[in-house]
């Protein structure tokens, strides 16, 4: 579903991600781990077009240009950010509506001329957005300003927005940050459900137990390069991974 080949990002002379290749199938949940600064988030940014990157990206078999925010979204990729990125001035349901996959009549022609058609697609959008809010448990807040939500609720709102576009690939950047154990487990449940519905999911996270419980495969990054890949139990035995996380015994 998602095929990234040789993704490289450099800031000035510093190479943040160098030649990372990663492919994720439909119905697969892949965890992306690595120490701080290993380029996990930068890799996600490169894939969704937020930073200048080089390499090759294919989503659902179609080639997607890099460095163009929005191109990956059109190809069916949704993204959740590390710090929740919601629009405070809009109410919750409007936040979800932004990412709606129902494209029709959202511009000036819909506002002024084709209002009938605009309403028709708008109703479909609202119904879908409401479903998404119910899915994440924020339906009661639909018409309240997003700025009133707590940190955790904003994350859920962002998840609803990401899901509202019926993504084929979903990227999650530390979804468990700021959640307590029970909430983390609930999130894991949701992610497994999402994966079962035929979405390729990439999760960046630091909570090893959480990832072990839900991921089919782990990819370990260090200094912008893939050092290990495989099922969780194998990956954690990998020598390089152990040294990357814990340091080499007797080393500097």
């Amino acid at each position: 579903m998602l095929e990234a080949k040789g993704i490289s990002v450099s800031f000035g002379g510093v190479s943040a991600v160098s030649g990372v290749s990663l492919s994720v199938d439909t119905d697969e949940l892949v965890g992306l781990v690595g120490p701080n600064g290993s380029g996990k988030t930068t890799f996600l940014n490169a894939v969704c077009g937020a930073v200048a990157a080089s390499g090759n990206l294919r989503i659902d078999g179609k080639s997607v240009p890099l460095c163009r925010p929005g191109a990956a979204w059109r190809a069916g990729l949704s993204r959740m950010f590390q710090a929740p990125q919601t629009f405070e001035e809009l109410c919750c349901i409007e936040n979800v509506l932004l990412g709606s996959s129902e494209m029709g009549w959202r511009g000036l022609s819909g506002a002024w001329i084709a209002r009938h058609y605009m309403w028709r697609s708008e109703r479909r959008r609202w119904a879908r957005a409401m479903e998404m809010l119910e899915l994440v448990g924020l339906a009661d807040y639909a018409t309240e300003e997003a700025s009133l939500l707590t940190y955790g609720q904003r994350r859920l709102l962002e998840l609803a927005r990401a899901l509202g576009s019926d993504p084929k690939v979903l990227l999650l950047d530390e979804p468990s940050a700021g959640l307590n154990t029970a909430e983390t487990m609930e999130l894991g449940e949701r992610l497994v459900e999402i994966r079962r519905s035929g979405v390729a999911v990439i999760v960046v996270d630091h909570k090893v137990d959480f990832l072990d419980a839900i991921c089919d495969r782990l990819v370990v990054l260090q200094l912008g390069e893939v050092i290990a890949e495989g099922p969780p139990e194998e990956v954690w035995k990998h020598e390089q991974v152990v040294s990357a996380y814990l340091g080499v015994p007797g080393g500097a």
Partner: protein
Amino acid sequence: MSDPVIVETPDAAPAPQGGTSWLGFMNRARGVVRPPIFDRHYYLGVAVFLVALGLLGPVLFTSLSAQYLLNLWMVYCIAGIGFYWVFGLAGKFAFCQTFMMALGGFMSAWLTKATGYNLPFLVGLIGAMVITGFIALVVGLAVKRAQAFYFAIATLALTEVGTTIFQHWTAFAGPNGTQSGLKPPSLFGYTFTSNSKVFWLFFGVLGIVLFAAAMIERSPLRREAIAARDNFLVAQISGVPGFGRQLTLFVAGSALGGLSGALFGHWDGSVSSSSFGIELAIGLFLMLLLGGVGSMWGPVVGAIFYVAIPQWLSSVQQYSQVIYGVVLLVVVIAVPEGLVGLIRKFGNLAMVSYRRARGRRPEHA
């Protein structure tokens, strides 16, 4: 792999009850938003406003100078609503709205002058909107990558270059950037010769513009423009064609500027590039900030003050710039949401307490 532990949690978190303290009450009031798209009050508001204006305008503003001010206010309202789309919704610091007004005036003069093409007034208006919209499209595409501050500089440069061109291009803008002898507005054989007649023309145009603005408020365009304004990159990544939305609003808003300039020119009989200088550009910002950037009614309310303040302060005319500056400062510090924002806040407060008194939560759309 093992399935994660299932934890029982309620389907939806309980609704916030809005604390018992007064402060909590305020917060609650702020949070209750009816998504404008399902809010029919926009049309009702426009209708009430127009009826009131139509009934009271001719009655209260009887003297020649009062009629002049009323018409001037309506011209500024039209330009201001266009500027609201550009600055308020799209969030673009455009300093070229006055240039668009001047260009609209000159374009309409060029098309309709008896010594030139001698086309009807309506063609002049349409020509003014088309040319200003087109120039805005070209400029918007040319400075595609310019962010907030750079966009402001680019549009300021456009205004300066435009003014210089108007000063020297006699064939288009008349001698020294002043085109006079525009024919009075006339529609379908009826000529609006006096201020009181022109009022009704402007009334009609303002009505159309207000309904057009209400339609934008009640459309997906509004939320997408706001999203692109507040966080362009995130909006783009989440599927909002941010650049397209901002360009659309810039073009539409500039066309309204052109329309208002053309209306002014035909009413006044002359267009001068010096009357659309930087003072008016700052004045437009003032109107929007004073009235409220967050609402289509902002420029309508703000323009009242922009037209009226010089009258109230005619004895201290030489300090007018200082007074504008002070007013702007006070507004930015004391009422950042503008007067309309202030009114809305109290309206929300009242609505919440009313609903609470009836024991209901605000309904969902």
